[in-house]
């Protein structure tokens, strides 16, 4: 499950990059609607946000972007609550209505705590969108219950503390957090720091149903942008990493110990 900031570095190239992800075998694509004031994003995603905003991205352009996409993969919108709250005449509902109209199937809002999410939950129910929540290594007890009561689609398991960004090695929080979630019957997608097929394999082996990869893909875009590579060349690299990640995830599934029958 790849993540890209829509419109990074510009509208047209970004369409091609998202289509490359689909071609590379993505099962769900998370599309970031950039917000000028993200909290606790690492430099890679911050710079993607800046490129996209400088390219003229706005909520309305984002919806046009989604409408213009030619992919056959479920799309999830990831954005900050301010944009959802400010859009249109009716706080929250207008945004969700428009998102549903262009074919978005779910939303993730990193800065919206489950306790404040009633309005968004209602709107998502009304328009048939999934509301995905993030669970961190620090999420436990009552908070975890409250989140799991409200989640739909899948739960985004944040594998490590700190800001977003691709890392060399995986965090050991992953297994611990997955274990805490075992009793909940919701698909678990693990993200934060995953950058290679081998990471993907070990995360799935540890029990994840999916892996979310953002910064590693965005770094390809950033590099291509800096060296002025053609959109097609960058798209090819993106497709190839998407393929590697997908193969890794499948391999991880096969490595998983078979459930014992009793």
């Amino acid at each position, binding site marked *: 499950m790849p993540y890209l900031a829509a419109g990074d570095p510009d509208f047209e190239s970004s369409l091609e990059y998202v289509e490359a992800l689909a071609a590379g075998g993505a099962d769900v694509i998370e599309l970031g609607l950039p917000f000028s004031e993200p909290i606790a994003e690492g430099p890679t995603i911050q710079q993607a946000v800046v490129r996209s905003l400088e390219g003229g991205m706005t909520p309305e352009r984002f919806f046009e972007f989604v409408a213009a996409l030619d992919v056959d993969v479920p799309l999830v919108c990831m954005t900050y609550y301010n944009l959802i709250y400010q859009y249109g005449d009716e706080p929250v509902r207008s945004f969700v209505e428009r998102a549903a109209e262009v074919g978005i199937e779910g939303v993730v809002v990193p800065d919206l705590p489950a306790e404040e999410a009633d309005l968004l939950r209602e709107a998502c129910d009304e328009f048939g969108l999934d509301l995905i929540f993030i669970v961190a290594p620090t999420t436990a007890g009552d*908070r975890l219950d409250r989140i799991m009561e409200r989640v739909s689609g899948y739960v985004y398991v944040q594998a490590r*503390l*700190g800001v977003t960004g691709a890392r060399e090695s995986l965090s050991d929080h992953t297994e611990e957090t997955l274990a805490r979630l075992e009793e909940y019957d919701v698909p678990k997608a693990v993200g934060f720091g995953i950058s290679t097929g081998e990471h993907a394999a070990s995360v799935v082996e540890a029990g994840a149903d999916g892996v979310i990869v953002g910064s590693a893909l965005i770094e390809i875009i950033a590099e291509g942008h800096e060296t002025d590579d053609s959109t097609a060349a960058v798209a090819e690299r993106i497709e190839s990493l998407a393929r590697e990640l997908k193969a890794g995830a499948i391999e991880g599934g096969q490595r998983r110990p078979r459930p014992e029958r009793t």
Partner: protein
Amino acid sequence: MSTDGDDEGEFDGFGGRYVPEPLEAPLEELAETFDSEIDSEAFREELDGLLEHFGGRPTPVFYAETLSERYDADVYFKHEDLLHGGAHKLNNTLGQGLLAKRAGKERLIAETGAGQHGTATAMVGALLDLPVTVYMGTKDVDRQEMNVFRMRLMGAEVEPVTRGNAGLAEAVDAALEDYAENFEDTHYLVGSAVGPDPFPRMVREFQSVIGREAREQILELHGDLPDACVACVGGGSNAIGLFSGFVDDEDVALYGAEPAGKGLDSGEHSAPLSASKQENPQIFQGMKTKVIDEETTNHSVSAGLDYPAVGPEHAALQSLGRAEYHGITDEEALAAFRELSEAEGIIPALEPSHAIALAIKLAEEDRHDTILINLCGRGDKDMQTAAEKFDLR
């Protein structure tokens, strides 16, 4: 009043805690530590002792004779500029520093604009033996250089922040990122009544000593409550500290002076309450509050007021009609800066110069007979700006 920040940090529909999930648990823990310590006698005793012997509290209230005659009103100053460090910031950094120590944290981080909060954090870090990192926009590193030297001298690391507007808001972003990485051993010592819960109500609590003292002192000096209290509003901590002492006295009018920069219509200011046309609050840096319009460039001559949003309790006080907020331009603030220096022999910081300018306006319009101004900082840090503006070289 219903603005006292309940358990979820709601001030009449403003405030709250809008942060990424990993920060929820540490902030909840901080809220719990605060709620339990603030009621503990041992904590209060330690804090009050330090405020007195390290900080120099109580700070006096001063009757400004020349200004009073000139504007035909009784003008009083709460002398927070005499608090150790030269601004009200120490009230908050001592309180949070002690909390951090009790919570077992081993490191302090802070954002700073004018450098006063960074300095007050560095002081407390040195006092309590906690290493300190201060994030400061490069724009402010340049215009408040003396405070950078002070912080470094006391052992703090000053991290210049270059992104975006390179000011206070960006310094907050950088500090939040550090906090997200390191909260297990690090306390983020937020410098104003802003951000996610519990910061706005916690900072208000630590600054409320200003209003508590001032109320007693003016009753003693003047024999009555003031008609109006005036304070400058960046994030709003010195203002909420003063207001908290008078908010239940319905006859005392409360005024916040916001930085109108080059003018409320100029498109360059940091005055969300007096200028924003937006009906809806925004969600910004973890809180629901008023923020300047998107088309407006954040600007103020005063680094400490140069912040695009405002603490949620001020947004609530405005919407409830309990306090009024007015814009004061750079020029008006500079004029008040000079006037107080000449008239009373007190060089104020550029931040409270906004409050002084607003108080003068109120007196000129004959709106109030007795005005209490929070003189929340001294102007040493602004000498470079003053030297340029007033040709002092």
